[in-house]
């Protein structure tokens, strides 16, 4: 089954027309629980994500947002729960049963991630284009000219200035580092793009520019995104649907407008009113 992902080559970036939102979810997680020592980071969390949508996850610090995203990226395995991704040509099994190699191949081909901390997502000593190229190398691209071209395309789509494509991330500003992470994440046209506080820590003006890029990407390519933030403003600009988390539980979820205009749960009301 591993061979299904390890097929050597993947096509260059394609620009697809936006898909219609279909009824079948692309991501389904059920009953995810995870305990670290005495901390119950996730308590039987269910998540559904539909193709082409942006799911926003909000919640206070320590509510389990990053832990949930790490599960989606198969970096960790929960104590209980199932995870399915509807991917073309894939047997629909619980992804938590995959071994390390299968997870790596699934991630390489189908999941992109942007971390708040660029050190988690980037090799600081290598060039920016090299960071993107590494993704393509893992997926089997062995042609130098094609690597350059595909890295350039992905950086361009992330609105990264191409004159600096061979600069090391350590020489770049925080906003530019996030664009490199984004280019790396989208280089193989992932089925799922995970964003863990991608703009936290950036200047407000830079943050707005990066969010613009994300919106453009979302519109042009219809990429399915899961966006974690504790900033309701960011969630409001980006998300189609919102999930509110507290102490490892989902307290409320619904369409973004609904959550912001008519929050049901007392905790959500507090959050929304504090923000407004």
């Amino acid at each position, binding site marked *: 089954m591993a061979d299904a992902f390890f097929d050597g080559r993947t096509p260059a970036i394609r620009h697809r027309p936006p898909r219609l939102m279909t009824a079948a979810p692309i991501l389904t997680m059920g009953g995810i629980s995870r305990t670290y020592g005495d901390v119950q980071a996730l308590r039987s969390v269910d998540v559904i994500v539909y193709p082409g949508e942006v799911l926003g996850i909000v919640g206070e610090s320590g509510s389990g947002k990053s832990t949930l995203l790490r599960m989606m990226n198969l970096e960790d395995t929960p104590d209980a729960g199932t995870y399915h991704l509807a991917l073309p040509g894939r047997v629909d099994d619980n992804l938590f049963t995959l071994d390390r190699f299968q997870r790596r191949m699934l991630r390489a081909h189908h999941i992109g991630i942007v971390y708040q901390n660029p050190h988690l997502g980037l090799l600081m000593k290598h060039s920016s284009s090299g960071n993107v190229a590494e993704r393509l190398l893992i997926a089997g691209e062995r*042609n130098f000219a094609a690597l350059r071209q595909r890295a350039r395309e992905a950086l361009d789509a992330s609105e990264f200035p191409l004159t600096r494509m061979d600069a090391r991330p350590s020489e770049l500003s925080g906003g530019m580092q996030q664009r490199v992470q984004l280019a790396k994440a989208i280089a193989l046209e992932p089925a799922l793009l995970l964003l863990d506080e991608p703009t936290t820590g950036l200047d407000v003006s830079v943050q707005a520019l990066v969010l613009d890029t994300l919106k453009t990407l979302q519109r042009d390519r219809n990429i399915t995104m899961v966006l974690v933030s504790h900033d309701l403003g960011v969630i409001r600009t980006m998300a189609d649907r919102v999930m509110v988390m507290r102490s490892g539980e989902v307290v409320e979820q619904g369409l973004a407008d609904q959550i912001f205009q008519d929050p049901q749960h007392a905790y959500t009301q507090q959050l929304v009113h504090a923000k407004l």
Partner: protein
Amino acid sequence: MKINELTKPWSAFNYGFLDESAKREIRRRTLKAVAIPGYQVPYASRDVPIARGWGTGGLQVTLTLLKPDSVVKVIDQGADDSVNASSIRKFLAKVGGATETSDTTEATIIQSRHRIPEEKLREDQILVLQVPNPEPLRPVQPDMSIAREMHGDADYGQLWLILYEQLVRSGRIMQGSSYPSMVNGRHVMTPSPIPRWDVPKLNQADHLTILSAGREKRIFAVPPHTSVEPLVFDDVPYRVEDHQDKTCYRSGVEGFFMNELPQDDGSSLYELSDSHFGIKSIRKAEGEPVTLGETWYKNGRME
């Protein structure tokens, strides 16, 4: 019955110097290494009477392979007469009764540091390469246990990335010796610090190559007729050192790997790195009845 009838007669050392359990250990590890080409097998490295870093890994393998009718050649960067090479060779003769030789075609076991002879090795010959650093992933992953997982997963993206970065920064591949190579399509190994010139000699060879690192306690192998492919991009061909048009100033031979000898006037002279191949070439030119073996490179090219 007397006690000396029950025990083995006294001798200064065991045949082949190593005790039988040490040899058994190394034989088992070597068999495993042959069974999984390019995979680094850990082994219990013994003390031998040379210092670590002077070929202890290679020496232990050679001692284990030794038979009274073995004919051993030992070279250091192509030379048979370096102090280290000749003392290892003498040691092998002393503890194993092996015959010493400088002639590649006569040897049954060739222990080498940093070179593979220019004359083609046959299936009845074994090449033992001394390895200072067996881990090709060391530059990208200092943690050995993670590096082992990466080998397990064939996770070599970062090795390719190093080559990508060299092309971006310098316009060419800068890796000289120890060029990382994919063995049997599965494990990336370092071929030890042999020049790029020598790496293609390992590909689909008739002979068995055993690589051994004494300090790092790792054995790996390239069995006969096994693919060894240097990591290269489709559109950036593998290049060996530009020695094909250099002429050896002693023997007049050209088209082989040379040592460069810088001269006072800024120019350079070249001499064959495979010193005994040079000696034989001179003798042959002088009309002596010497046999030069078939060489891997012909007219400076390998087909």
